[in-house]
C-alpha cells in the first residue's frame, strides 16, 4: 500500500467521494462537487478555445500574417454576440443562417449516401434456404420490414398490418433491450474506472 502524496490526486479522490455521496442522499459535498465540475469545465473550455482556436487560428493569421479572408468568420462570430442586445439580436440570425446553410450543403448529400443509401443497400441481401447465412439474411429483411410497418401510421394497425406491426415491435424491443444492457455495462464501467483510480492512484493498493 502506497498512499499518494500528490495534492491533485487527493483532490480528485475527495471529489470522487463527494459525487458518490449522492447515492446515500443529496448533501452539500455533492453540491460543491457538482458546481465545481461545471465551473471548471466552462473555464477549461474557454481557455482551450482561446489558446487552441481563436488566437492561433484566427487572430494570428488575420492580424499578424494578413490572411484577410478570415475577417468574414470574425464578423460572423461577432454577430452571434448580438443575441445579448435585444434591439440588435436579429443580426445573430445572419450568422446562424450562414452556419445552417453551409452545414446543410456539406452534409445532406453525404448523409443521404452514408446513412440512408448504404443502409438500404445493407438490407438488400441474398436470401437462401439452404444455408445459415441465407436464413439469417431473410431474418434481417423480415425484421427491417416489420419494424418499418410499425412506423406506418396512415392505416389502422389491424389485420395483416397489425400482425406485422406487432412482430416489428418485438424486434424494436429486442433492440432496446440490447441498448439497455449496454447502458448498464457502460455505467458499471464508469464505476470501475473511479474505483480503480481510488485503489490505484490514491491508495496505492492496486498496481
Amino acid at each position: 500500500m502506497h498512499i499518494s502524496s500528490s495534492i491533485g490526486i487527493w483532490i480528485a479522490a475527495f471529489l470522487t467521494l463527494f459525487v458518490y455521496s449522492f447515492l446515500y442522499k443529496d448533501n452539500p459535498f455533492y453540491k460543491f462537487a457538482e458546481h465545481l465540475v461545471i465551473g471548471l469545465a466552462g473555464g477549461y473550455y474557454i481557455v482551450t478555445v482561446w489558446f487552441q482556436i481563436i488566437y492561433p487560428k484566427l487572430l494570428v493569421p488575420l492580424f499578424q500574417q494578413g490572411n484577410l479572408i478570415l475577417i468574414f468568420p470574425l464578423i460572423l462570430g461577432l454577430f452571434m454576440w448580438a443575441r445579448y442586445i435585444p434591439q440588435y439580436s436579429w443580426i445573430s440570425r445572419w450568422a446562424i443562417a450562414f452556419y445552417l446553410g453551409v452545414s446543410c450543403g456539406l452534409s445532406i448529400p453525404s448523409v443521404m449516401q452514408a446513412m440512408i443509401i448504404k443502409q438500404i443497400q445493407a438490407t438488400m441481401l441474398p436470401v437462401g434456404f439452404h444455408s445459415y447465412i441465407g436464413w439469417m439474411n431473410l431474418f434481417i429483411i423480415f425484421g427491417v420490414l416489420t419494424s418499418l410497418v410499425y412506423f406506418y401510421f396512415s392505416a389502422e394497425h389491424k389485420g395483416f398490418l397489425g400482425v406485422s406491426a406487432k412482430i416489428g415491435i418485438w424486434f424494436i424491443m429486442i433492440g432496446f433491450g440490447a441498448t439497455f444492457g449496454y447502458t448498464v455495462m457502460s455505467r458499471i464501467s464508469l464505476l470501475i474506472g473511479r474505483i480503480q483510480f481510488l485503489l490505484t492512484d490514491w491508495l496505492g493498493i492496486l498496481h
Partner: protein
Amino acid sequence: MNIYEKMMSIDRRILFLLIALSVIIPLLKPLLLPVYVTKEVRNLYGFIDNLNPGDVAFLSLDYDPSTMAECHPMALGILRHCFRKGIKVIVTSLARPEGLGTAEMALTQASQEYQKKNGEDYVFLGYKPVPGAVLLAMGENFRLAFPNDFYGTSIDSIPMMEGLKNYEDIKIVVTVSGSAVIDSWVIYAGGRYGVPIGAGVTAVMATDYYKYLQSGQLVGLLGGLKGAAEYEKLIQYPDMATKGMDGQNMAHLLIVFFIIIGNIGYFLGKKAKASKGIGG
C-alpha cells in the same frame, strides 16, 4: 409487509453498496474470468496488424474525461498496437476541447512505453471545432484544417508529415469516441473519401453503431470496457480494462439476480393479492 413486498422494497442504498462491493472485491482478489474476443474486435485488430512498419494510421481520440473509463483503455490498446508494429500515428481530438488533455495523456503514456518520438513516429494535431468541416478539409489536405500541430509547430516542418497530404496517404482511421463524432467520420471520411474506418465507442453507444458493421462502413468496432479488454487480450497487454472485467461480470450477475428477485416479488405478490381478493 409480507416477503414479496420486502423483496420489492429493498433500500436502494443497500443495492448500491452491494454493487460497489461486487466491483471492489474482484479488483482486490481477481477471479481471472476469461475474456472472449468477438469478431468485430478481431477484425479491427487484424486490419491494423496487417499494416506494414512505416504505414500511417489516423487515430482520433474523440472522448473527454466523462467517458475516459471506457475509451482510454481502447486508445492505449490501439496506440500500443501501432507503436509496437512501427506504424506511424496522426492523432486528433475532435469531440470537445476537454478531450485534448485525455488524448495527450494516452499519447504520452504509449509513446514513452515504446520510446516513440513526437514528429517522427507520431503527430498530435489537437482540436478544432465543427468536426464535419474539419474532416472534409482534411480530405483535401491536412494542412487546411491543421496548419500547425497541437504544440504550435508548423506541419510542413514536421518530418513525419512529409509526403502526407490527405486520407489517400492513410491506411486506416480509428476513432475512439464518446460522442457522435463517429458519425461524421463514417459520413465524410469513410463515405466521401473511402478511407477505412474503425471505431471504439462507449458501451451505451455501441448498439447504434453495429449497423455500420453490417453495411461494411466500419472495419471493426470496440464496444465499451469489454471491447477494450478484448483488444488488450489480442495485443497480449492486459491492463486496466482486463483488470476491470471481473468486476464488470460480477456487477452484471448481481444486477441480473436483482432483476430476477424483483420480478419474482412482483409476480408472486400480485398473485397473493389476487388470491386474497378471491378469498375475501
